[in-house]
């Protein structure tokens, strides 16, 4: 039984433009399954719906249609106790370490508040121990040094570590990390991803890692299952190694060839497979979401939406070419 299971998720956002009201599907018929203790990568450009999907699994956004199950139980049908347990066990690491910490609270208070709210500790000493333990786990060493600091006194990397500590302190079973390192320096990215990786490995947490950088997913190993999203749709799903060496969907191919590589010799081999920007989600093409930019588009692509189907046991793709 998967730990988190999202089925047929549709999230519809509506916007007003003058008198007209229009809506679009930010997430359009997506399935997501995460087994206990595994890592799933969610790859896509901005506006692809990856954050929305992540938040749906945390019940931070209610889907317009579809079901989210936690340990086999529909979260909409949980009783209060079960729902509380789900909430404690599903945590979130936000993208922007500069905006997500309370500016008037010290690190100690930020963490203590969570422990107190959920009554996880019997007394102050136990609470303190939990905080110390979590802080050293995320690399805030020695914890005493950071206790009485306000977020503005910390560097970007340290802030993100506090964010990670905040998610870990409840010892959750499931974490959504939403672009946790985009705002950080190149030399720090690896360190932070490593921290997340080690922290979840020791207690077997499941992780949904949302990113637009395919190279970051490599740190989680070649067998990490990756979903590629474009305009609310999952266009390809495969283990990372397969995705890098044998990308099949034209969008994945374009992404793979556009990845910046730290090698001056690779310059000449770069090419741009997709031109232009993704269309506004308000006027998605009627057929395949990529049909207006895809160099291989055939008549069928413009009419009919391809469905995600398996072409080998764990390689799924939504494209009429296959």
């Amino acid at each position: 039984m998967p730990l988190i299971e999202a089925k047929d998720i549709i999230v519809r956002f509506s916007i007003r433009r003058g008198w007209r009201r229009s809506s679009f599907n930010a997430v359009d018929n997506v399935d997501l399954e995460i087994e206990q203790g595994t890592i799933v990568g969610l790859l896509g450009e901005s506006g692809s719906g990856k954050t929305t999907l992540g938040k749906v699994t945390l019940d931070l956004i209610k889907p317009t249609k579809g079901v989210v199950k936690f340990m086999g139980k529909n979260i909409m049908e949980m009783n209060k106790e079960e729902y509380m347990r789900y909430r404690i066990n599903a945590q979130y690491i936000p993208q922007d370490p500069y905006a997500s910490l309370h500016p008037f609270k010290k690190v100690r208070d930020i963490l203590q508040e969570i422990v107190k709210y959920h009554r996880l500790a019997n007394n102050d000493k136990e609470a303190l121990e939990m905080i110390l333990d979590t802080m050293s786990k995320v690399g805030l060493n020695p914890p005493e040094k950071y206790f009485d600091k306000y977020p503005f006194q910390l560097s970007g990397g340290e802030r993100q570590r506090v964010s990670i500590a905040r998610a870990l302190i409840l010892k959750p079973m499931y974490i959504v990390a939403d672009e946790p390192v985009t705002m950080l320096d190149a030399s720090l990215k690896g360190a932070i991803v490593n921290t997340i990786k080690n922290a979840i490995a020791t207690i077997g947490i499941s992780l949904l890692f949302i990113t637009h950088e395919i190279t970051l997913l490599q740190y989680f190993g070649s067998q990490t299952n990756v979903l590629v999203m474009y305009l609310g749709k999952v266009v390809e799903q495969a283990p990372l190694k397969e995705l890098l060496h044998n990308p099949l969907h034209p969008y994945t191919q374009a992404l793979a060839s556009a990845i910046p590589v730290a090698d001056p010799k690779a310059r000449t081999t770069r090419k741009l497979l997709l031109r232009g920007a993704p269309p506004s989600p308000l006027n998605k093409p009627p057929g395949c979401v990529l049909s207006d930019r895809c160099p291989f588009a055939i008549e069928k692509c413009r009419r009919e939406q391809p469905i995600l189907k398996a072409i080998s046991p764990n390689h799924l793709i939504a494209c009429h070419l296959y």
Partner: protein
Amino acid sequence: MSEVLLSTKNLSVSYYNTKVVSNASFNIYKGETYALVGESGCGKSTIASSIMRTLPEIAHINPDSQIVYHMGASAIDLLKVPENEFSRRFRWKEIAMVPQGALNALNPTIRIRDHFIETAKAHDLEKEEALERAWKLLEAVKLDPQRVLNLYPIEMSGGMKQRVLITMALFLNPKLVLLDEPTTALDVLTQREILILLGELKAKYSLTYMLITHDIALVADLADRVAVIYAGRIVEDSSVDNIFYDPKHPYTIGLLRAVPKLGEFKEPEVIPGSTPDYKRLPPGCKFIPRCPFAMDICRKEEPPLVEIDKGHFVACWLYMKR
């Protein structure tokens, strides 16, 4: 080698009593792309601001510093030019800058056309002439001028805004363009498009670029020569091939190792320690606390930037014959 366009000599900048750039000397040759690379807070943007003379008032440039700009046969020390002359003759006309953060650099309350008209007013250009020039440049960056000129910044995507900013930098026909993190905050595919575009513009308008970034992959893609900066000091300066295939300074080596390579699934390698604290810099080499090869002399004396091979400058005691 072709002729020098701009060179700095012993450029030192302090904020209050903290020296953030220390004795930076480098040459930028006509027609090349020169990259300043380093982590955030290493002083690379301060160097750019000193060249544009847009430093905040609290900044103090050491009187020994020189920024020499070569115009035909004459060499002019930009730091000695009075401000009104600098803004009339140099800023934007000879040296322009594409600022960091494409998403917030435009005035949200006026249309794109008014951005150009304002610039024209400040430089005594006729409105019609200005719009005509803007039209041509917008076509050169592959935007539809008819449409874009009437848009507000909020109506444009990140990639479009970045293109408009590039257009504005090129508006007065500069020779040297400073690119401050030109692709951060853009999607992978958009990044690739902007990079290709920058290459085209450089050839078309015979520009010289100074690239400021922390993104190693971007450097590999764009630069001809690279200066690696640590704690406000140039620690290594050489051709892009030397930097990537024969790095000498331990910091450069660490920086390159920290970047994941495509198709490699291994633990991230991290430079130990944290970014330097300018208030508490060690007396000798500033990289000592993080350097795996630190020797006695490193603790006592700061290494000078020395040419160890033709065109390969390194500031490290490991490579110095004594």
